């Protein structure tokens, strides 16, 4: 089966400093995977390369078997890949409802049309209502997104990402800065909205990682040092050493 995402010897330098140093990785379609690694390892940068925010310095990236290296973010999104951001990235002056509507327009085929009204488009309405319900933001639909609480904004961030119905989803630290109970809610939400899809998720909370992921990739200093099942990652001495910075001495 063709992988959902395939990276082949991907490199990225920023001003001559190598940040991603030869990553080859295949993400099997229909799986939930976690990307872990210490701060500054290049996890967000890797997302930026896959989604077209930054151009690779070297290497190829394929989405569902098609080469997407060098495509613009919107072109990649139209092929069914959607992402969220580590730092909340929403439309602050638009209402919550508008935020979600804008995220479904292209996917529903409205493109750049200026001959029909959004509020009369039933499919847009229904999809947006369903997403708001899923996010638990129905009551807040008419509030400008910029005034939502932090946890609500993080939920909307996920909502914008999944509303279009992309089948490959990249989430960058969706639970960062959240309380225990908020984290549990978000994990539940992620589980719901990514059922049957491919998910790659950067996450620091190990209980979330081991709870959700079918496979785990470990990125350290721009290199993938391991890509395996949670059990084997947990047991791997190399991962323990590189990731936690302490050699594993006792068992």
């Amino acid at each position, binding site marked *: 089966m063709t992988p959902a995402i395939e990276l082949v010897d991907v490199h990225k330098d920023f001003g001559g400093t190598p940040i991603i140093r030869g990553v080859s990785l295949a993400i099997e379609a229909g799986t939930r995977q976690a990307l872990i690694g210490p701060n500054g390892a290049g996890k967000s940068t890797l997302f930026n390369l896959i*989604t077209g*925010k930054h151009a690779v310095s070297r290497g190829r990236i394929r989405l569902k078997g098609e080469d997407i290296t060098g495509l*613009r*973010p*919107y072109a990649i*999104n*139209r092929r069914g890949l*959607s*992402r969220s*951001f580590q730092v909340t*990235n*929403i*439309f*602050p*002056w*638009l209402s919550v409802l*508008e935020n979600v*509507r*804008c*995220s479904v*327009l*292209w*996917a529903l085929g*409205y*493109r*750049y*049309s*200026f*001959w*029909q*009204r*959004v*509020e009369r*488009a039933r499919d847009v*309405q229904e999809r947006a*209502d369903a997403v708001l*319900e*899923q*996010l*638990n933001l*129905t009551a807040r639909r008419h509030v400008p997104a910029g005034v939502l609480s932090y946890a609500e904004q993080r939920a909307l961030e996920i909502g*914008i990402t999944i*509303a*279009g119905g992309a089948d490959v989803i990249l989430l960058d630290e969706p639970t960062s800065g959240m309380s225990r109970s908020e984290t549990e*809610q978000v994990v*539940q*939400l992620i589980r*719901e909205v990514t059922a049957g899809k491919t998910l790659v998720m950067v996450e620091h909370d190990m209980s979330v990682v081991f709870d959700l992921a079918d496979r785990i990739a470990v990125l350290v200093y721009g290199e993938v040092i391991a890509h395996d099942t949670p059990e084997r990652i947990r047991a791997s001495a190399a991962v323990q050493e590189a990731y936690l910075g302490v050699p594993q001495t006792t068992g």
Partner: protein
Amino acid sequence: MSAPAPATTRHVEVAATASWTHRLRRLGVWLAAGALLLALPHVVRNPVAVPVMNQMGIAVVFALSYNMLLGQGGMLSFGHAVYFGLGGFIAAHVLNLAGPGGLYLPVPVLPLVGGLGGLLFAALFGSFSTRRAGTVFAMISLGVGELIAASSLIFDGFFGGEEGVTTNRTRAPLLLGLEFTTDRQVYYLIAGWALVAAALMYSFSRTPVGRMANAVRDNAERAEFVGYSARWVRFVSFCAAGFFAGVAGGLFAINYEILTAENLGLNASGAVLLMTYIGGIGYFVGPILGAVVFTFLQSMLSDYTGIWLLYLGIMFLATVLFVPAGLAGLIAMHLPAWRAGRLRTLAAPYALTALVALVTAAGVIGLLELVHFVVSTSPSRTTMRLFWMTVPARTLAPWLGFAAAAAAGALGVRWAAPRAAAAFAAASRPPGAP
């Protein structure tokens, strides 16, 4: 996260009925606007009012088109008059081709010609200027404005040199026997076009690309990650804005029967920015209010004083500093108090603030007019008319008087304004709140 099903259905129903009444109310607003426009020339009896209203109608269309860029799309343009002016010139030339034995082109469709002209040039210049927003876009708009202003001095055949291009609307063939000889007949044409153009521009803002224009304004990066090219969204908005600016230019050509290089210059571009901002860029009605007030002040003030541009400039500064949401924002701000039935509690503190503000304004205006008089008239003239008074401008007394008024008024404002603000805050509190 999983609400019970009945709650969900009920919510959708509520939303559906809300949009129904919403639609009816919106239709009512448009009908009322149409009725008002029909009635206006009968209500306002002053004969000089009709030309001013014609000018307002043209300005309304122009300002609304400008706000498609600034308010809706987040594009600050310093050269929007280019599309107004070029549309107008093209309309004037086409009108000159019309007439007996010439082109069959009745006057009422001429604004469409202007619009297509504006659209053509917007597509041309927009193709590279919409690549980026922000400073880059603003600089390119300025550059294009300069380019076209310079071209108007070079291409005499098209721009008519110093005298501009004149035309004659009475030579065009008639449509349904409609004649356009008097200002009043032209008024109805402008009013009709303004209403249609406003409705179309409003509709545009509700379409997928219009909604995405707001999204790109807010966060161009995120828009690209939900499938939209920010550049294309800006380009479509830019073309639409150019089209309606051209419609306004076509109306101008019909109304004044002359276009000069001034109409597409930087002053005209600055004026539309000013009036749109004063009206409020965050609201659809903002540019309408701004265009009406700006045109009114412009035509009134220019009768009374030679430094009216200075006053409009001060008004613009005051808007930017104190009411960045503009006139429309000022009105919208008071809706909560109005709904709570507490507007009356604001009357006294507002009246007091207005009074002292007026005293300040009178003092400042007096001083400015004195300065203007002293520097612009020969020393032999010693008295001037000011506020229904004859003032000995070259003595100390009026200067001291106006300075005292300005100072006293300013102190009064400092005392009264916080009280008005407190009254506003109290009146705006939601009804249930303590």
